């Protein structure tokens, strides 16, 4: 549809609307209303605007250019294309988050193809497509590459289904490409050949991220590409196959980089080479974000020193560092706002975080070996405490540990009351307070009481219903809650559903919550994006009752253990939708 086509005038305000509502005081010309609305970007605000009255609904739908679909099955391509005629950028999320952890069978769905077919027909001027947890096949990438002449940005976060061929189409045909980001996407047969497919005169790339690709890439092509794009390239994240000296050559061509993902640091370099790498880093005056760093150890850190002082985000989640090594580097990074590390840095490393990074806002500590049950390794409650003492601005925490105490969490949130995201994963399910052996209820009660801005919470450890009573009572801004191996009865889930007004996503696994709990949320689920319950006590009967009560919810059971009423519903995924039951559901997904 040509964006200049004058829309039909049926929405012009007359003295009274067909439904008799009083909009007489809102009689500006459509053009003025649309001009005003064109300044509103947030889709939430736009959704609100569209509810004011018919005129505003129409003005809004004509002026919306960014489409955000939080759950690809909550709406259909047909409905979207009817409502929004002028879309330039699209963001869609697909599978529920637990699919990241292999909890969803393969071929569950969230294939983008049907969407692309519609976009190709209705939005030929589409410029941006950002997908998360969707399946993207090569034929879809081909359709994308060939359908949108002005296409600029492709971002595939945690997607799967494509190979080298798909990327080749994009590189070959998207002449105006500024962004190609396949972060965390699982691409099995993807090599580096697609890099050779960018045309000789192509020079507009601003963002290139292929850090999660497993294979070698064609370095000459990459080097030439980076060189051609030296004026525009801001973000470059290469994969592990790129060596240090190759990295140096790339950096020389890209001094304007703001974000860099390095390749492997495992390389013997001559002193001269070290110097060269070091000065390449120093010359990147705009560098703020550093990641990659595979196999980096303190032998190499000196090359980074020239850039450290300016860094705001350091992602060491691929580098197995000891505490001393981390401490040594962090001494040079006083401006860090975000830090991701592996738990080999231990509590001592986190003490260094506390003492070197006073501006820290986000900390993520990942486990080196999630399945190792040796209690000697990793971080503990001491590390959490140390960070909270040194970093009062901390508001985002993801912390994998093998032991924790109520006291430490209580103290930590006292030191850092601004938490918006508190994700604590005590890796042994149902583990109590390490010192007192009591449940971890007090810890999470403190989190919700002390942190009024909390939007996301993941709980773990031994938890009774008390935790959930506290959550229901205090977590008034909570939007996302993840629960595993916790709670004693249905009451827990009921408290959360009744008490958290802003709850949008609830994911529960292995908890003793049954039909009563499920059905207590009957009025709630339409106000939420989705509910996931797996390995709980919900039966097919409960699911059927919910489905009957609420026709605008899709109640899907994956891998049921039998279809009679009494059978347990192994995995249940409930979400609001205006599109009706899925038409592409595989045989193992049962929509009730």
């Amino acid at each position, binding site marked *: 549809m040509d964006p200049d086509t004058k829309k039909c005038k049926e929405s012009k305000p007359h003295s009274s609307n067909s439904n008799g509502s009083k909009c007489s005081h809102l009689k500006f010309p459509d053009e003025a209303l649309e001009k005003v609305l064109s300044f509103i970007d947030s889709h939430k605000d736009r959704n609100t605007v569209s509810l004011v009255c018919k005129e505003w609904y129409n003005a809004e739908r004509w002026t919306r250019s960014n489409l955000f679909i939080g759950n690809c099955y909550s709406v259909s391509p047909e409905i979207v294309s009817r409502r929004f005629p002028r879309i330039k950028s699209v963001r869609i999320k697909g599978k529920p988050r637990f699919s990241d952890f292999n909890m969803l069978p393969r071929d569950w769905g969230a294939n983008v193809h049907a969407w692309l077919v519609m976009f190709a027909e209705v939005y030929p001027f589409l410029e941006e497509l950002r997908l998360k947890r969707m399946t993207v096949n090569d034929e879809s990438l081909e359709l994308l590459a060939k359908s949108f002449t002005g296409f600029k940005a492709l971002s595939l976060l945690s997607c799967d289904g494509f190979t080298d061929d798909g990327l080749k189409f994009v590189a070959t045909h998207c002449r105006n490409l500024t962004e190609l980001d396949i972060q965390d996407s699982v691409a099995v047969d993807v090599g580096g050949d697609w890099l050779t497919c960018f045309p000789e005169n192509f020079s507009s790339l601003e963002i290139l991220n292929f850090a999660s690709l497993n294979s070698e890439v064609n370095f000459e092509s990459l080097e030439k590409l980076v060189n051609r794009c030296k004026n525009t390239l801001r973000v470059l994240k290469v994969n592990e196959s790129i060596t240090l000296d190759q990295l140096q050559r790339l950096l020389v061509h890209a001094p304007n980089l703001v974000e860099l993902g390095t390749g492997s640091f495992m390389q013997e370099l001559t002193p001269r080479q070290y110097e060269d790498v070091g000065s390449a880093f120093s010359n990147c005056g705009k560098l703020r974000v550093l990641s990659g760093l595979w196999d980096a150890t303190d032998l190499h850190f000196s090359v980074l020193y020239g850039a450290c002082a300016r860094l705001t985000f350091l992602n060491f989640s691929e580098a197995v560092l000891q505490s001393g090594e981390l401490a040594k580097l962090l001494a040079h990074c006083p401006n860090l706002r975000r830090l991701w590390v592996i738990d080999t840095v231990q509590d001592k490393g986190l003490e260094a975080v506390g003492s070197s990074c006073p501006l820290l806002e986000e900390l993520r500590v990942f486990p080196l070996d999630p399945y190792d049950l040796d209690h000697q390794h990793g971080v503990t409650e001491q590390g959490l405490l140390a960070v909270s003492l040194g970093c009062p601005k901390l508001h985002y925490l993801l912390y994998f540990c093998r032991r924790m105490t109520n006291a430490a969490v209580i103290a930590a949130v006292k030191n850092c009351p601004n938490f918006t995201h508190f994700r604590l994963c005590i890796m042994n399910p149902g583990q109590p307070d390490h010192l007192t052996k009591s449940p971890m209820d007090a810890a999470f009660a403190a989190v919700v009481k002390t942190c009024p801005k909390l939007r996301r919470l993941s709980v773990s450890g031994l938890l009774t219903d008390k935790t959930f009573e506290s959550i229901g009572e205090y977590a008034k801004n909570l939007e996302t809650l993840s629960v595993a191996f916790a709670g004693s009865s249905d009451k827990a889930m009921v408290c959360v559903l009744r008490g958290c007004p802003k709850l949008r996503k609830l994911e529960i696994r292995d908890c003793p919550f049954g039909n009563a709990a499920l059905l207590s949320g009957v009025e709630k689920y339409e106000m939420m994006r989705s509910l996931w319950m797996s390995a709980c*006590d919900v039966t097919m009967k409960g699911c059927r009752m919910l489905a009957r009560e609420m026709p605008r919810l899709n109640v899907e059971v994956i891998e049921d253990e039998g279809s009679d009423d009494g059978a347990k519903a192994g995995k249940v995924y409930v979400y609001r939708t205006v599109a009706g039951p899925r038409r592409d559901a595989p045989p193992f997904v049962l929509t009730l």
Partner: protein
Amino acid sequence: MENYEANGLNLKATELRLGLPGTGNEQQQQDQYSSSSSSHQQNVKNNYNNNNKRSSSEIASSCDDEQQQQHDDGAPLAKAQVVGWPPVRSYRKNVLEKKNPESSMFLKVSMDGAPYLRKIDLKFYNNYFDLLKGLENMFKCTIGVYSEREGYNGSEHVPTYEDKDGDWMLVGDVPWDMFVTSCKRLRIMKASEAKGLVSPL
């Protein structure tokens, strides 16, 4: 969990166990939780290949003794792995395998007559005795005792392995450390078929 499944899938070993063996919550909570993807071969295989260091019967026997939370040789008790827990993305799991190539050494084990191959982590065992006991438990067979002269004469089953050169050897002939570095895969043969491997001295 006490019952080892004869078909070799050993699904019970992928079930959750809460807390350390012997803690009170364990039995109650276990009844409520089931392996959420027991019907999916792929997930079971993932579980299995990743970290199933113990056969279920070994875990079960250790459960009986509250105090004995370690295996006899001092190795920590490995819990059965649960699908999707801890919630760490698959690609992150690979960090360990890449960084610590010494940390595990998974080998395929086949037994004549059994429909499925199994995998064991050779690094988990410190000597032939532990290995053979482990194999006996895993396959519910008797291997008996090795002797330099007679091999496994008198046993129903004979453990053999393929070495770096592709030759099939009798388990026990070489020192343990040498065995660990040269063993590529294991095969438990029926004694009747293993005659050729017993080294006549």
